[in-house]
């Protein structure tokens, strides 16, 4: 068993380090971080009315996370496999004595690290609310944690689709559509029409599969095992698909 895992995960750390370096060797990571932070700030202040709520918490900030992840994280993940295909380096990778799962997880984790860096750079927001009042810092830390998990789920969609299409633009568009479906499923606007069409029971079911619904509890500072399991399971599913789609290359 241990042998099997070692074999499957061989190449993980080499891939992780190479991918992380690739993000920062090009302007990719810097552009992503700058625009992501700008957009997050803009939405928090302008649309979320951060100061007008009169409450020292990060509610207006976290509420935008699913929506921004939906657009930004597929952009971060789209190059992971499509770029290899375009430059022919996938052939080089497949000729190495390493396991596909190690490759898949190494790439995903590199993108996840960049996303985590983005989240960490929002710390000034957290510091600010502590100057303005007495927020529940445990609750905020917990929301950050679940948000990071959710980011992994969004990235796993983008990475898997990138392996499937082999084209960055197609990967981005398809990933955003899939991410939108899983995000908007919990949107009241969508839910009310689902409810009127298929009944309340079905609407509840749809809502349960939505990232927004799963993230709601965490936003209130409640750690729900259900949400953690959902995001972990979702990511695992797409990692599995990613492995399948990446090894499909071997079949020609």
């Amino acid at each position: 068993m241990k042998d099997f895992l070692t074999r499957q995960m061989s190449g993980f750390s080499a891939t992780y380090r190479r991918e992380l370096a690739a993000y920062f060797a090009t302007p990719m990571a810097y552009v992503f971080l700058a625009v992501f932070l700008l957009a997050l700030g803009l939405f928090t202040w302008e649309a979320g009315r951060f100061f007008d709520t009169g409450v020292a918490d990060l509610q207006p900030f976290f509420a935008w996370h699913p929506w921004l992840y939906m657009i930004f994280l597929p952009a971060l993940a789209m190059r992971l496999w499509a770029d290899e295909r375009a430059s022919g380096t996938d052939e080089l990778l497949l000729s190495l004595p390493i396991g596909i799962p190690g490759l898949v997880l190494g790439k995903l984790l590199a993108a996840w690290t960049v996303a985590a860096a983005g989240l960490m750079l929002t710390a000034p927001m957290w510091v600010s609310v502590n100057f303005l009042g007495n927020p529940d810092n445990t609750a905020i830390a917990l929301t950050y944690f679940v948000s990071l998990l959710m980011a992994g789920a969004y990235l796993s969609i983008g990475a898997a689709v990138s392996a499937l299409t082999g084209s960055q633009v197609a990967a981005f568009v398809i990933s955003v559509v899939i991410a939108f479906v899983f995000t908007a499923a919990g949107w009241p606007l969508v839910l009310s029409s689902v409810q009127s069409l298929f009944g309340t029971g079905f609407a509840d079911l749809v809502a349960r599969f939505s990232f927004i619904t799963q993230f709601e509890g965490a936003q209130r500072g409640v750690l729900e095992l259900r949400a953690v399991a959902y995001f972990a399971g979702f990511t695992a599913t797409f990692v599995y698909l990613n492995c399948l789609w990446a090894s499909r290359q071997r079949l020609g």
Partner: protein
Amino acid sequence: MLEVRALEKSYGAKQAVRGVSFTVEKGTVLGFLGPNGAGKSTTMRMIAGVLEPDAGDALIDGRSILSDRRAAQAALGYLPEGAPLYEDMTPPEFLRFLAEARALPRNQRASAVDRSIADARILTVCHQRIGDLSKGYRRRVGLAGAILHDPPVLVLDEPTDGLDPNQKRAVRALIARMAPTKAIVISTHTLTEVPAMCHRAVLIDRGRIIADDTPAGLARKSEDGTLEGAFSRLTDQVEDETQ
């Protein structure tokens, strides 16, 4: 050293490789010749474990590419067609990545990287990004990657394609230096370099081997006694048969 057994591969209805078999011993450089689309690259991809064969097998240093893929790949140095590389890395970064991915022992990685840089003669471009290098140097960086772990078997897909005469000579010299200790397969369609570089030539057309001889023996199969003559006569013949 390298034993290829009846490899077959189809893409949809098109049969790209139909039962290719050959054996290469240590100390032999085998030239893998054939027109474009004959199945050279497909065969090499299957040997490298990049492509799964429909039937057949390849043994690299006695390890099957099907049932013991990682061990077989560990014994193989492979240069894919066009020498794809990570353009954002410098040559040493790229080689260090390969050393880590191939799980070379930690204390041997630095010396393996240094040795392959010296062997491929790329020391002067080590500080440049691979994306900024000329075609000749990129090919040599790819070669450095293929010989990094000092494998007993080398499969090089068109290592001299698109290089100028000086660069070709440098690559040929490198291959000649390595030849005594390794089994090497080189694909090319530059026939003039075959006698200088290869001990044996396998001619493939439409997925089948149509000749397997020394370069001189192959040349004798033509009317004018040149490899080129043999190449066009033999590949034309197959064309006639299928029509």
